[in-house]
């Protein structure tokens, strides 16, 4: 058995920069725990690179695109390459908000999800944008959130408070992909709950509360140190915190995820509402999962090492959802 780990970061998605930052942090953590780490990007030489390393575990720290949508993980499944994180099929479902939200709504009984509609751009062209926009206003109501179905880091997301803003917000979301999500805006306490499984089954880490200085947890607020206040554990009652943990675990299970995930949710009137789940949570200096690990009195490096160990011990058979 070797200590070889290949940390995958970069990729071609809009979140490449975030991924590179996350990857460097994970790679350093694994080096600190005695692993031999190779950092690699996703390109035509990747499979040769992996083949050249003896008995590696791949740690994908790719945000967005093929790294998070399951495409690359399906290749690893096919080639019996061991890796940290959820399977290709599970990632595919989780990454697409147009699919994951209804799945959580159906399978995580007793938890709330926002009213949501997902629409490809050609629907607007074929059915007439004005009609659909009017229907969205009536059915979802204002304020509402508009976002790309398959993207992260709040890229392409807009809060829409009146009908006149809706077309531009939808066009902005379509700049990132072919399907836009329009969903009810949930007002409340913004919280992220990370789930990790280092061998003893999935467990929820302490909730991290997010208080962006500008009021909006956008790209700048996410990745500029100082722009957001993080409170760990979140300033919630014990009952609320417990419900948040239950929801994150329920989403993790409902989507068939493994090893690690992060569920973003909003606590409204004492009850958490599911917003989205991430199979490749950010690992940067300002990211939520590392903060949650710290709040649980564990070390980031040890958790990364434990995730690698779990992946290494896993048989080639994948646990499909």
């Amino acid at each position, binding site marked *: 058995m070797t200590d070889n780990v290949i940390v995958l970061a*970069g990729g*071609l*998605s*809009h*979140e*490449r*920069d*975030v991924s*590179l930052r996350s990857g460097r942090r994970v790679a350093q953590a694994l080096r600190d725990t005695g692993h031999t780490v190779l950092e690699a990007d996703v*390109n035509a030489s990747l499979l040769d690179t992996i083949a050249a390393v003896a008995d590696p575990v791949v740690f994908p720290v790719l945000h967005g695109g093929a790294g998070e949508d399951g495409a690359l993980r399906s290749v690893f499944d096919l080639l019996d390459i061991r890796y940290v994180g959820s399977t290709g099929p599970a990632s595919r479902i989780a990454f697409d908000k147009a699919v994951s939200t209804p799945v959580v709504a159906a399978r995580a009984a007793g938890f709330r999800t926002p009213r949501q509609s997902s629409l490809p*751009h050609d629907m*607007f*062209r074929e059915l007439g*944008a*004005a009609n659909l*926009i009017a229907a969205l206003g009536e059915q979802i109501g204002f304020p509402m959130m508009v976002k790309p179905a398959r993207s992260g*880091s709040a*890229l*392409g997301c807009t809060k829409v408070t009146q009908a*006149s*803003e*809706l*077309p*531009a917000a*939808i*066009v*902005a979301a*379509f*700049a*990132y*992909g072919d399907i836009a999500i329009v969903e009810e805006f949930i007002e409340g306490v913004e919280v992220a709950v990370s789930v990790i499984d280092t061998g003893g089954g999935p467990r929820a880490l302490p909730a991290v509360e997010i208080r962006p*200085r500008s009021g909006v947890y*956008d*790209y*700048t607020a*996410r*990745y*500029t*140190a*100082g*722009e*957001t*206040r*993080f*409170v*760990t*554990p979140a*300033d919630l009652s014990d009952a609320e915190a417990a419900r948040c943990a239950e929801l994150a675990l329920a989403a993790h299970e409902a989507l068939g995820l493994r090893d690690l995930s992060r569920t973003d949710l909003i606590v409204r009137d004492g009850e958490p509402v599911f917003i989205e789940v991430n199979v490749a949570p950010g690992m940067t*200096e*300002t990211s939520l999962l590392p*903060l949650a690990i*710290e*709040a649980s009195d564990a070390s980031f490096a040890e958790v990364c090492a434990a995730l690698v160990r779990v992946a290494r011990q896993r048989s080639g058979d994948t646990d499909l959802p």
Partner: protein
Amino acid sequence: MSSLEPSRRDTRLDPYIDQYADRTGSMTVSAVRALFAVANRPEVVSLAGGMPNIADLPLADLGASFDQLIQTKGVQAMQYGSGQGELFMREKIVEVMAEEAITANPDDVVITCGSQQALDLVTRIFIDPGDVILAEAPSYVGAMGTFNAYQAQIHHVEMDEDGLLPDALRQAVVALRAAGKAVKFLYTIPNFNNPTGITQPLERRREVLAVARELGVLVVEDNPYGLLTIEGEPIDAMRSMDPEVIYLGSFSKTFAPGFRVGWVLAPHAVRERLTIAQEAAVLSPPVFSQFAIANYLDNFDWRGQIATFRSMYQARRDAMLDGLSAHMPTGTTWTSPNGGFFVWVTLPEGLDSQALLPRAVNERVAYVPGTAFYADGFGSRNMRLSYCFPTPERIYEGTRRLGKAIADELEMHATFGLDTGEHRHTDRNLGPAPDVS
């Protein structure tokens, strides 16, 4: 909100967040900046960066020459040097400036770490917070970053196809002074303006200088690209017509940017302060780089190398202009530069180049949105395209991809009725930029 329990950690992940200077307020991460990380991938045709293409340099010969330099003058070349820069380098710079009709004394040259640091020094010695710097509309993003760092107020002056408008300059100065503002200097890039590629003809330079002289406005002339004129000879520098002009030069485009050697030529009294400011900033500009560049100028055909660069950039410019003609949707316009690195594109009405960028990246092409080149929010319909680095074939392909992204965005706008202007973003879209095409 309830008070936090002692066991809770409340952090902004930066213990110094309340201690930074006010001028750092805009130094934050942005999604647009992050998208440029994707542009570095080989799959993406990056028309974003302004990186000089130095692949044609005679690297083997340079290596042998630098080896000789280290063996014969290494101890001196790797030591601290003069704060003003080495005399032999300043003498060489005077020779280089003569190519653009400038007559100067080496004593009036201060060597800097690229002309970017010359900008920093000039701003440092002239600007108090709130002072006004006049700049072309649009202007070099890196200069505006420096001006902002010194809390200057940037006021843009309109351009036409011949660059700065003298009447607009006059009106701006008069109006700003009437409002009690201290107008400290005019920052201008007369040759192949970054980002527009527009050049001021000789007569326009005279007119601008006449207005500046009449109103007592100092002129800072930034000229990194003048020797990269494609057709014809470089136009005489403004400094050649007026010794009071502060002139910024650089070897980054005519040789190589990695040496970080630029310079500022200034009237005697100004030069004195610049030298003292330079000593405070870096003690001495890179001595080894000065030796290396002087060695290059002495022993290589640097004029021939510039001619090679010009023809290499001409092929790239032609590929870009051909590509734009072939691929841009109706309603798109662009400039046709005779040198430098950049073409300035104006999108059809209603489109926003910043909103378009993720779609362009999906198509594997990148550019810089026009708003980066304005301090006042204009430029949403514009983008800067660089033709300096990719091969002509890749540039042409990049324009094809860009054309598709624009066409798709136009279709989207048509679907959603956004071309009427009624439903546009109001925060970013401040209407069309000045027509500089």
